[in-house]
């Protein structure tokens, strides 16, 4: 001991003070501040999403339309690779030494402890031999991925395609989608996305500071398994779908066939079509760009997006409404001089042919324009000229009951409404009260501003086949293994025509095929009831239209065929329809009296002149073109038979206006 004895308290005091400071700091970071625990969790936890296999899509008989094809990616973690026989390995993968070195260097650059793709998309066959021996090569592993695969390459527009999800969808998905995920972009893939995608699983794993996996987090307590997407059974019949696509090749147009007793769509052909396998994988971008550039736009879903004047195929509907309204009876006759004169307007029959005395059935069979113009005028003017607007509105409502002018609520996206012009539209075109039956007479024969999609036309035939009602047309008949059918598809939608009025019209339609305009499409031994249409449009030659159902008793199929710019319905659409109907009903195609064959139609090229088609169809119109089109529309405002043509600005704005009073009326 010496005189500085007390200093030990100072030293001890300093020691204690410093320890207190350390403890205070420890207390703060260990107990007060929660962020370190969170960071530690983030450090160590790696969530991997386990992707479920997307549901397959089948045709109505269980044949596969789209499935998942497994591909195998060989992965490598360079650090974990032990010396091995590279020659043997290259042989196994089917690559050469240079290829091996290139891949190796790339993987190494990607990070020695990182798992990188070594070889992409091995097919199942190649992988079979690789998988047996993969364990001999430590550091290499394989992961399974799935790509969409279309074994028969059919029904592309129906199926649609999948692609990487867009940022805005990710944002609004509530965390379901992540960048790089796939999502249905069009077609069934889009509308049934929630069913097809299945449910993702999550695997929580722990990683060390270098990102190497170190086993399951909490023994997999928070892991969830992936649930595969459900299977969809579509209503399509792959046989007639394929036949339809074959018949429509080198033509622009569409075929829609529906089973009248269920509303199930049997064929959904959009032509030109494309091979859906092109919309898979890394080449999708290039391929879809090519398709966008295609003048005839194969991505356009013509069965629901193209709008055509129904032309004469509309006549049965005209007749039915007139019968229901009591304006005519089946016995009502008209003496056809080859035209119908309404005021100073004259509606000519096809080719100016004089049909002489016609009744309802023969008018349908002969497609007499004069008769139906007469009927239309009677309907519109039966309460006097002053009531034109009211009677027209009644007539329009009756037409709309058949599903025209509004969406049929199909279970794939992109449906167009078609068009049944509103009174307001005519008020704008002329002036209020300034139009009458004679002004809008072209509606009588399915021309004028009347536009329908092939789906609407086919649905119309269903309604006739069913004598007064239709089931909502739909493309998916069952979801999953339980064949769940939506309730809404079991409901009959009545169109407000008594079933008794259908017989005379159907008689006429039977006559069309048996001895009328559609005689070339007569099917031996099957009674088909149909109606040809020659839809005039100002985009070139008329569209060839044919609608039908068969057999007459207990109909099994209703069909609408449109071949753009191919002239008379009898020449192209009707025979094509007859082949599909026969194939569906009989399972084969018999020789025809008229000598027509499937091959002839399949090989015929009816593509419209591409320059012409381009001008009226393409979506991006140069300013010059727009100006020209506008000028055209101004000049002849009512003969706007647009067909598949792009609606120009004026048109769409008037359509917008036309919607307003309709909505009011609905309320």
């Amino acid at each position, binding site marked *: 001991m010496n005189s500085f*004895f007390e200093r*030990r308290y100072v030293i001890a005091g300093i*020691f204690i003070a410093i320890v207190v400071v350390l403890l205070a700091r420890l207390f703060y970071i*260990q107990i007060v501040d929660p962020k370190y625990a969170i960071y530690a969790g983030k*450090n*160590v936890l790696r969530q991997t999403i386990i992707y479920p296999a997307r549901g397959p899509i089948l045709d109505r008989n269980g044949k596969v339309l789209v499935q998942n094809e497994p591909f195998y990616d060989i992965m490598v973690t360079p650090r974990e690779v032990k010396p091995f026989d590279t020659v043997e390995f290259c042989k196994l993968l089917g690559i050469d030494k240079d290829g091996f070195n290139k891949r190796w260097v790339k993987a190494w650059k990607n990070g020695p402890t990182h798992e990188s793709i070594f070889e992409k998309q091995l097919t199942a066959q190649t992988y079979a031999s690789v998988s047996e021996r993969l364990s001999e090569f430590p550091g290499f592993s394989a992961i399974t991925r799935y790509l969409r695969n279309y074994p028969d390459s059919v029904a592309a527009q129906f199926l649609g395609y999948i692609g990487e999800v867009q940022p805005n969808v990710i944002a609004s998905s509530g965390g379901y989608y992540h960048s790089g995920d796939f999502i249905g972009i069009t077609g069934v893939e889009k509308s049934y996305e929630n069913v097809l995608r299945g449910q993702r699983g999550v695997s929580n794993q722990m990683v060390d500071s270098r990102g190497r996996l170190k086993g399951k987090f909490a023994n997999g307590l928070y892991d969830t398994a992936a649930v595969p997407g459900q299977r969809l059974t579509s209503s399509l019949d792959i046989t007639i779908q394929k036949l339809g696509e074959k018949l429509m090749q080198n033509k622009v147009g569409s075929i829609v066939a529906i089973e009248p007793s269920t509303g199930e769509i049997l064929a959904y052909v959009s032509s030109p079509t494309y091979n859906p396998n092109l919309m898979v994988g890394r080449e999708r971008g290039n391929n879809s760009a090519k398709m966008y550039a295609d003048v005839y736009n194969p991505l356009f879903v013509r069965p629901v997006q193209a709008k055509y004047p129904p032309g004469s195929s509309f006549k049965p509907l005209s007749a039915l409404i007139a019968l229901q309204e009591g304006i005519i009876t089946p016995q009502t006759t008209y003496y056809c001089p080859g035209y119908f004169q309404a005021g100073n307007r004259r509606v000519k029959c096809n080719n100016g042919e004089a049909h002489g005395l016609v009744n309802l059935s023969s008018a349908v069979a002969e497609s007499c324009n004069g008769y139906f113009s007469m009927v239309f005028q009677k309907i519109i003017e039966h309460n006097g000229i002053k009531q034109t607007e009211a009677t027209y509105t009644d007539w329009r409502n009756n037409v709309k009951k058949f599903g025209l002018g509004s969406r049929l609520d199909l279970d794939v996206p992109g449906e167009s409404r078609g068009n049944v012009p509103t009174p307001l539209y005519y008020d704008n075109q002329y002036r209020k009260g300034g139009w009458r039956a004679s002004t809008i007479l072209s509606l009588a024969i399915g021309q004028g501003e009347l536009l329908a999609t092939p789906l609407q036309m086919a649905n119309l035939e269903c309604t006739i086949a069913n004598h007064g009602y239709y089931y909502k047309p739909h493309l998916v008949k069952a979801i999953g293994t339980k064949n769940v059918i939506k309730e809404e598809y079991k409901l009959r939608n009545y169109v407000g025509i008594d079933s008794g009025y259908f017989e005379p019209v159907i008689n006429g339609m039977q006559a069309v095929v048996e001895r009328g305009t559609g005689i070339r499409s007569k099917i031996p031994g099957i009674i088909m009831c149909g109606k040809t249409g020659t839809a005039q449009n100002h985009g070139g030659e008329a569209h060839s239209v044919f609608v039908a159902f068969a057999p007459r008793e207990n109909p099994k199929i209703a069909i609408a065929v449109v071949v753009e710019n191919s002239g008379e319905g009898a020449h192209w659409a009707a025979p094509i329809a007859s082949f599909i109907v026969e194939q569906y009903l009989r399972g084969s195609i018999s020789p025809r009296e008229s000598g027509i064959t499937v091959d002839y139609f399949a090989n015929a090229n009816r593509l419209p002149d591409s320059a012409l088609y381009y001008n009226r169809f393409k979506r991006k119109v140069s300013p010059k073109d727009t100006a020209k089109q506008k000028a055209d529309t101004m000049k002849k405002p009512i003969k706007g038979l647009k067909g598949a043509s792009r609606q120009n600005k004026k048109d769409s704005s008037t359509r917008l206006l036309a919607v307003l009073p309709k909505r009011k009326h609905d309320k």
Partner: protein
Amino acid sequence: MINSQRSFFFNVDWVTVFIFLCLCTIGWFNIHAAVFDERYPSIIDAHTNYGKQFTFIVVSIVVGGIILLLESRFITALAPAFYIITLLLLAIVLVVGRNVGGNQAWINMGGGFKLQPSEFAKFATCLLLARYLSGPNIRVAEPKAFAIAVAIIGVPMFLIMLQPDMGSTLVFLSLVFVLYREGLSPYFLIIGALFIALFVTSILFPPLAVIGVIVAITLAVVGLFRRNKKVVYTMLTGLAICVVFVFSVKFIYNSVLKPHQKVRIDIILGIKSDLRGKGYNLNQSKIAIGSGKMWGKGYLKGTQTKYSFVPEQSTDFIFCTVGEEWGFAGSLTVLGLYLFLVLRLIFIAERQRSPFSRIYAYGVASVIFFHVMINIGMTIGLVPVIGIPLPFISYGGSSLLSFTILLFVLLKLDSNRMGIV
């Protein structure tokens, strides 16, 4: 003879031995957790560092026992020899040393064991310092004695600085507590603390602002004591030195310090944040300790530790494992043990009759405490990252053995406290 043997062991301070054993065991288990290898799960498996540490602990206990059997006089007499041998080793290591992590601090002894002379330099320096200061008529407050004492501390310090091992170098500064206890003016401590504060503030704030504040304080004090000429002159001299110092800080900081040292200081002061690069260690270390919460994640369950997010986790950053797996409770226990140990050492020091033992005891307490303060302070971001081990806990034979020798020599001296050395 038998009697005296018994009395040696009878007089050993078993409390200290108990704390020593506690710390060694804690270290061993935490090393097991820190470098756990699934292939060799056993804590005594010789393939692993925890297995090796077990060997080191056994060896250390044996060495400690041997020391207790030695004659005290032997230790005192050999103090200069130890010192000279250490200096030689420190010189040799500069030539033939193995470079580990930028420090030329290791001599390869063969058989996989390496010797770190700087660890033993602490012991030798304490011993010689005690020997010198306990001499007759030596008073630290006198310039000559002070100069010699500083030289005894300074020479090994300088040699270690050449390695360069900044951590071990700084440890020698802790011996200022010994000098203080032996009569050095308290101003040394106060001025030392002031300069550290000044250094930090000068880095953080512009020099003119710092000087402004100092001038204001000086003027206030001078104003208060203006009648006392001595105070006025002292303050003015101090002011002049401070001004020079503040301006030289930037220079020291930029030219004398190595870039990595500069960055470590910047990080601790919050000037820089480089979580992926230079600041990675500290950040991960804080995450490890902070995520332990109150009770920790449990033995062998620390994810930061197990998955090697913290570098150097069995040596300098071993405290991360303590904090992560045992939580605040574990941190408190370990810090408590250390505090208890150093206070016990001060208690032991003060009960010595011989100045030699007392001075040596203070040396031991200061060195151990300095290690603890810097090491733990560094893992929780209070002190710049300086690589020095946590006594008795960090992995490493040299470190453990040298601390054991340091401690047990004291226990030997203490057990003999009734005798005259």
